[in-house]
C-alpha cells in the first residue's frame, strides 16, 4: 500500500475518508441511508461518495429506519458489504428487531450457511444542543445482544481504522460515533487503509495509581481529567474500550490488577449501562487486587434532557475527578 501523507482531520472527516477508501478498494461495499447521497449525510459523513461511486452504490433510501436495517441484512446475505447510516442513534430503536432477531443470529441459526457482514453506523450521545431524541446513548441496548459487535471510536485515527475493520469484519457491527466529537479536534490520519484491531481495548496512557475506563464521547473528559490528576501527582492509566462487545476483559483486568483502583466513565443512564457490565467483570476477576470499590460515573437514570440542561446529565471533568478523589480517600496512594 502506497504511503499517504497524514492529513489533520476531524473525526467525521476520518469516517468519510474510511468510507472513500473502502468503497474504492472493494466494489461490494455500498452505503445506504437517509440523505446520504447528494446531501452527503446530515453530518456530512458521506460527502462526495455518491459523486464518486454513483447512486447505485450510495443509496438514498426512503425515510424508513426498519427498512434500512433490514435491507442491509438482505444485501449482506448476498455478498455485498452494506454500511447503513441512521441519522441519529435515537432513531435506531426500530432497527433493534432486525439487528437482534436477524443480523445477530443468521450465521448461528443456519450454521454458517447465511452470514451478515454489515455495518450500521449512527451518531450517538449528547452535547450538540440538538432537539429531543437526538442525543441518546444507546450502546448498551446493542451490546447486550449476542452475535453483534458494538464499536465506539473516540479519536479520528481510531474512527478511521475501526470503521475499516468493521466493514471488513465478516459479522454485523453496530458502529456508534460520538456526535459531539465529530468536529471537536483534528488529528493526523494517514489514509493508508490499515484497519485498527477490533475486540481490543486501547491502553492509551499508562499509569500506576488508578485505571480510568471509558469510550466514545466521554474519552475527551477522561483525558482532561487524567492530565489534571497528573498535575496533582496522580498517575492514571487511561483505557479506551473502543469495542464494547465482545469485551476485551483481559486488558481491563490486567490494568486494574496493576493499579488496584478503577473509575468507569460513561454517558448513558447508569442502570444496566455498559459500565455495569465492566464493573461486574472486574469484580469477578480483579477483586483481590482492588484497594477501593470500583466507581461508576454515568449519566443519571433520567430522560436525556433537552439542550439547556444536557450538560448536567453528561458527566463532566468535575464529576470524574470527584469519583477519583473518593476512590483515593478510601485507598490513599501509598
Amino acid at each position, binding site marked *: 500500500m502506497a504511503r499517504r501523507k497524514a492529513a489533520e482531520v476531524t473525526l467525521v472527516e476520518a469516517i468519510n475518508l474510511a468510507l472513500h477508501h473502502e468503497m474504492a478498494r472493494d466494489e461490494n461495499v455500498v452505503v445506504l441511508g437517509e440523505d446520504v447521497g447528494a446531501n452527503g449525510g446530515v453530518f456530512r459523513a458521506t460527502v462526495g461518495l455518491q459523486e464518486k461511486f454513483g447512486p447505485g452504490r450510495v443509496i438514498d433510501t426512503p425515510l424508513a429506519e426498519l427498512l434500512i436495517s433490514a435491507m*442491509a441484512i438482505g444485501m449482506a446475505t448476498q455478498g455485498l458489504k452494506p454500511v447503513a447510516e441512521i441519522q441519529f442513534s435515537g432513531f435506531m430503536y426500530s432497527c433493534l428487531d432486525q439487528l437482534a432477531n436477524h443480523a445477530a443470529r443468521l450465521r448461528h441459526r443456519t450454521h454458517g450457511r447465511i452470514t451478515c457482514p454489515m455495518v450500521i453506523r449512527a451518531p450517538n450521545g449528547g452535547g450538540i444542543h440538538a432537539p429531543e431524541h437526538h442525543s441518546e446513548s444507546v450502546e448498551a441496548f446493542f451490546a447486550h445482544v449476542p452475535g453483534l459487535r458494538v464499536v465506539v471510536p473516540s479519536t479520528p485515527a481510531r474512527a478511521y481504522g475501526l470503521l475499516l475493520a468493521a466493514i471488513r469484519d465478516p459479522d454485523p457491527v453496530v458502529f456508534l460515533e460520538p456526535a459531539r466529537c465529530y468536529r471537536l479536534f483534528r488529528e493526523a490520519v494517514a489514509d493508508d487503509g490499515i484497519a485498527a484491531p477490533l475486540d481490543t481495548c486501547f491502553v492509551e496512557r499508562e499509569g500506576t495509581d488508578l485505571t480510568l475506563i471509558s469510550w466514545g464521547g466521554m474519552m475527551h473528559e477522561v483525558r482532561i481529567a487524567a492530565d489534571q490528576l497528573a498535575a496533582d501527582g496522580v498517575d492514571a492509566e487511561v483505557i479506551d474500550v473502543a469495542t464494547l462487545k465482545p469485551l476485551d476483559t483481559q486488558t481491563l483486568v490486567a490494568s486494574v490488577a496493576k493499579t488496584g483502583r478503577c473509575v468507569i466513565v460513561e454517558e448513558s443512564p447508569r442502570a444496566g449501562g455498559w459500565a455495569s457490565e465492566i464493573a461486574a467483570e472486574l469484580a469477578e476477576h480483579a477483586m483481590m487486587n482492588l484497594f477501593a470499590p470500583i466507581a461508576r460515573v454515568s449519566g443519571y437514570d433520567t430522560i436525556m434532557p433537552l439542550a439547556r440542561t444536557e450538560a448536567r446529565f453528561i458527566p463532566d471533568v468535575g464529576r470524574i475527578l470527584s469519583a477519583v478523589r473518593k476512590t483515593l480517600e478510601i485507598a490513599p496512594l501509598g
Partner: protein
Amino acid sequence: MQTPDEARTRVASFEIFLTRFLDDDGRPLCRLPAAARRPQRLLHAYRLMARIRAFENKAVALQRTGQLGTYASGLGQEAVNAAIGLGLARDDVYLGNYRECGVPLARGVPMAQILQYWGGDERGMAWPRTVPAFHDFPFAVPVASQVPQALGVAYAMQLRHEKRATLVTCGDGASSKGDFAEAVSAAGVWKLPVVFVIINNQWAISLPRSRQCAAVTLAQKGLAGGIVGEQVDGNDLIATCHVIETALARARSGAGPQLVEALTYRLADHTTADDARRYRDAAEVDTARKHDPLARLHAWLEAQCGFTAQDETRLQAEVAAEVGVAVKTFLATPAPPPEALFDALYAELPPALHAQAFAAAGGGEA
C-alpha cells in the same frame, strides 16, 4: 359556477383483479394457459402437493406423540407453496415464514432437516450446498420481518445486473405490520426484482381477516406503494402457478416488483399449541374443506390427464415411504453437543467468549 365537489378532478383510480382458472370441482372456468395444459407438469405439481400434505400431517402427528416441538401446519395451503416452489428458478432467492415448509421441500431441502429444525435443532437450517434452496433464508418467526429483508436481496441482484428474482411470502396478519408497509412502499422506487406474496389464509391466530384491515383486498396495499397488486385463488394450483410465474418473469426482466395476494384457508389450528375451536366455527372450516386444493387438482387430473385411482394409491404409497424414511433419519439424529451453543456465533469465536464456551462444554465455571 361549479360546486366545490364538481371542481375536484379524478387524479387516479384503481382496479384489483382476481385470477381463478378451476372451479371447486376442478372444472375449467376459461381456456387455460398453454403451460397449464402439460400433463407432466401438473402431475409433478400434484405429487409435490401430496408430499407437502403428507409432511404436514406427519409433523403434527409427531408433535402429538411428543416427538416434535410446536409446529405450525400449512394444511390447506399446499397449492400456493407448490406454485412458489415450482415458479422459483434455481438462482432465485426465497424468504418466508414458519408455515411455508412446502417451499423449501419443493426446493430440495431434505424432509428430515425440516423436522430437525422443528424438533429443536438449529442444524435443521444448515441446508446442503447442492439444493436450490441453499441461498434461501431460514424461516422467519418474527412476523413480517422477512419482508423488508427481501429488498436488500433484490437490490444486490439488481446492482449486479443479474436476471434473478427474490420472492418473499408473509401472512395476512403480517400485512398489518410496519415492516410490510415500509418494504412495499419502497420496492417500487428502485423497481426491484422482488415479488411479495401475501398468503391470506383468513386467520392470524384468532384474528380473522376482517379484523386485520378494513381494505377490501390486501392486494391493494401494493397499489399504495405504486406497484402492481392482484389476487389469485391460492387453492387453484394452475392459476397460482400462472400468476406467480408471470410475476417472477416480470421481476427478472427488470419490469419491477409486484404484490400477489393468494387467497387460501388455514385448515389446521394456528399451531399444535392452539385450539382454533375457541374462536372459529366448525361450519366455516367444513366449508373451507370444499375448496381443498388437492381435491381440485385431482379432479382435473382425473378428467384431463387420465389419472386413475391406482395412480393415486401408488403416489400415496411413495410419499408415505419418503416421509417414513425422513422420520427415521430425524429420530436417529442425536441432539447437538453442548458446545454447539457457541458454533457459528461469529465467524471466529472471540477470545472474550472462550471461557464461557469452555464452561458450557463441561469444563466448569470460568
